């Protein structure tokens, strides 16, 4: 192909190919027809046709999170773009690199309320890391390359490129990505300052009651960051807790891992956070689900915070020692300093600290009352864990109680195998995300741990799974309630279950069959293993409808606005502690 003879759509695809893009999740429409025409005439890029644009963005998120590559989305103007907004916001909150290509009316019609016109750059400005409106075909390749750079570097995030139809049709010149060229204004900092590293090493070495509090930033930084983190945590012998977004950054079955922290975190993790004297935050952002009541958040500790985004520092919690930089780079700096300086930990203090932690652990905070008659949701997940642990398994979730139980009861041994909507909490995320992960890992086992309410939000994507023969497994913990809503109504609103019962649910078995998949159901504990085994043996997509206890609640729970030591550990706890007035206004 001669350079000058390419039209915008062809230039776009060439730029994507040069960026290593293999898959695009999309949905066509008038404004992007030139791109679809160009896609039709090439083989390098595979297009996955979703059933709603929202599904495309979540699929791209699942693809990105499970591979470390960029997830690419292609949607048409107007409603195509507006349907993508939830997914973009989700990717922004969870720092997922996504490029979303949106069609736009031709440049001369912009602003005229033309057919399917929406102010896409205006609408997506607050829900993207950056966005572009390309007005000249000769800017197109540069913008695409820049967009990939912005989406993947620093704190990753979604980037929108809005493409007027005339720009796609006009002929122009393609320019390759200039690898060495620095961006004129955007320059993320990856290395931390040397004297801050020295101070950090001193603090870490002299700690008596240390804890690593690590998060999604470790995953964002790449698999090598997880490796370095694991090495350093092992080297120190210190306890480590993970956020919801960080699960898998450190092996979940290692004895130094004391579980997730936060609202539904473990007793030992939250009490260790409260009582520690040195906190080493690695790529976590002091989210309110984690801190609980800020005024009582880890009051006795010196806090070290490694984060690539300076705006994460001192945003919610004031820290003593910020280290702005990339997790892998900064951990390398720290470990070098540690080894060069021959640093040693305080073994005696550490032994006492572990003894204390062991006492907290002995509370066995995740225990629940087993039943012979009814499937407990926790038990269903324990069985799922047991029967899949030898497999290369990727887990996605929807949002609700099932999501929290999945975080508590499944074990994540390596990064990029756990995908959940943490920051935005988007119901409907899990199925399309599983589709994206399965596209990236066709041979792997991909399971969406779902709730019966959430799954209805993007159920249409089963059709996508069918079309591309993606054998995703939807494991529904069916409590016939918006369980998380019901739990809050029980605890905070006098058990007035306003609109949280799921009426008129479909028959999920028949529903799976009607989409061309396999439906299974378990209603009694003794049916569970059989259903899971059958699900795992099926080379097609499956919905496993697991009928679970309708009234089960997620424990431990730190009620909104409460401190880490103020955990509800089980049903008996709840009546004893009314939620504060300040707590009632929090979400």
């Amino acid at each position: 192909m001669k350079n000058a003879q390419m039209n915008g759509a062809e230039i776009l695809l060439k730029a994507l190919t040069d960026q290593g893009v293999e898959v695009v999740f999309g949905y066509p429409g008038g404004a992007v027809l030139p791109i679809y025409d160009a896609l039709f005439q090439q083989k390098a890029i595979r297009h996955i046709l979703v059933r709603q644009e929202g599904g495309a963005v979540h699929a791209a998120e699942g693809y990105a999170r499970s591979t470390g590559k960029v997830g690419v989305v292609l949607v048409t103007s107007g409603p195509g773009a507006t349907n993508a907004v939830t997914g973009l916001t989700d990717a922004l909150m969870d720092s997922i690199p996504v490029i979303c290509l949106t069609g736009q009316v031709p440049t001369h019609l912009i602003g005229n309320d033309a057919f399917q016109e929406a102010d896409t750059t205006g609408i997506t400005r607050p829900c993207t890391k950056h966005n572009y409106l390309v007005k000249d075909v000769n800017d197109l390749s540069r913008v695409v390359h820049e967009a990939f750079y912005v989406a993947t570097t620093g704190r990753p995030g979604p980037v929108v490129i809005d493409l007027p139809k005339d720009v796609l049709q006009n002929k122009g010149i393609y320019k390759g990505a200039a690898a060495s060229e620095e961006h004129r204004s955007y320059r993320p900092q990856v290395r931390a300052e040397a004297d801050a590293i020295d101070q950090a090493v001193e603090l870490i070495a002299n700690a008596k009651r240390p804890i690593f509090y690590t998060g999604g930033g470790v995953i964002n930084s790449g698999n090598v960051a997880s490796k370095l983190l694991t090495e350093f945590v092992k080297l120190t012998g210190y306890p480590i807790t993970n956020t919801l977004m960080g699960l898998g950054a450190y092996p979940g079955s290692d004895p130094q891992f004391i579980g997730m922290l936060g609202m539904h975190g473990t007793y030992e993790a939250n009490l260790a956070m409260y009582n520690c004297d040195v906190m080493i935050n690695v790529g976590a952002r002091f989210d309110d689900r984690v801190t609980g009541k800020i005024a009582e958040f880890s009051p006795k500790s010196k806090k070290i915070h490694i984060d690539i985004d300076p705006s994460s520092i001192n945003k919610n919690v004031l820290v003593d020692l910020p280290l702005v930089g990339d997790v892998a780079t900064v951990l390398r700096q720290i470990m070098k300093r540690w080894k060069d300086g021959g640093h040693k930990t305080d073994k005696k203090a550490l032994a006492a600290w572990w003894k204390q932690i062991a006492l907290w652990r002995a509370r066995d905070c995740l225990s629940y009352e087993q039943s012979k008659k009814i499937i407990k949701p926790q038990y269903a997940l324990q069985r799922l864990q047991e029967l899949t642990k030898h497999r290369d398994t990727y887990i996605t979730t929807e949002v609700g109680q099932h999501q929290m139980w999945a975080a508590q009861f499944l074990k994540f041994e390596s990064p990029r195998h756990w995908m959940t909507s943490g920051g935005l909490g988007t119901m409907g995320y899990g199925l399309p995300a599983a589709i994206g992960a399965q596209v990236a890992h066709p041979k792997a086992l991909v399971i969406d741990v779902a709730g019966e309410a959430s799954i209805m939000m993007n159920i249409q994507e089963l059709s996508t799974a069918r079309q591309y023969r993606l054998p995703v497994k939807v494991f529904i913990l069916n409590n016939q309630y918006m369980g998380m809503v019901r739990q809050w109504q029980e605890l905070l609103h006098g058990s007035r279950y306003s609109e949280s019962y799921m009426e008129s649910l479909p028959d999920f078995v028949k529903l799976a069959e009607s989409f061309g998949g396999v439906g299974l159901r378990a209603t009694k504990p003794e049916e569970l293993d059989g259903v899971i085994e059958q699900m795992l043996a099926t080379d097609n997509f499956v919905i496993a409808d697991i009928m679970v206890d309708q009234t089960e609640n997620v424990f431990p729970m730190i009620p909104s606005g409460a401190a880490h030591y103020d955990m509800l550990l089980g049903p008996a706890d709840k009546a004893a502690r009314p939620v504060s007035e300040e707590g009632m206004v929090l979400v």
Partner: protein
Amino acid sequence: MADPKKLPSVIEKHTIAVLVANEAGVLARVIGLFSGRGYNIESLTVAEVDAEKAQSRITIVTSGTTQIIEQIKAQLRRLVPVFKVSDLTIDGPAVEREMALIKVVSTGDKRVESLRIADIFRAGVVDSTNKSFVFEITGATEKINAFIKLMEPLGLKDVSRTGVVAIARGEKPL
């Protein structure tokens, strides 16, 4: 970075200079950031300052606790088309100026008095009719506030202000 732990939690006014790429949507990004995150804007001015490099300079007067001000600066620096952010209130002495055009409509003693006060404030007359003056006044915000206050009983009819522009004293550029 200032250490927010050591600084008081009182609300302070800060003047922040932001050097940005002069491209479509950049002002919307800055303003959207302030409204979306609930920060105050007391005044905001913007104009291109380097046509060749296509750079504009935005001066924002805002207020907040030390933690909020630090957060505002970090958020501004996060925007892709932002080159530089400087807190002129912290980074050393700065000159701050505002310009205003002020219309006063009156006759007789009031008209004479308005002219006399304008003279004291070194405000120039840039337009006049039998019944009206348009004064041009430059200075610190407080000076302009004071002038406007004095004009109120003398037939003040219309005010147009630029908002603050500011620059650090001394040799160093932004």
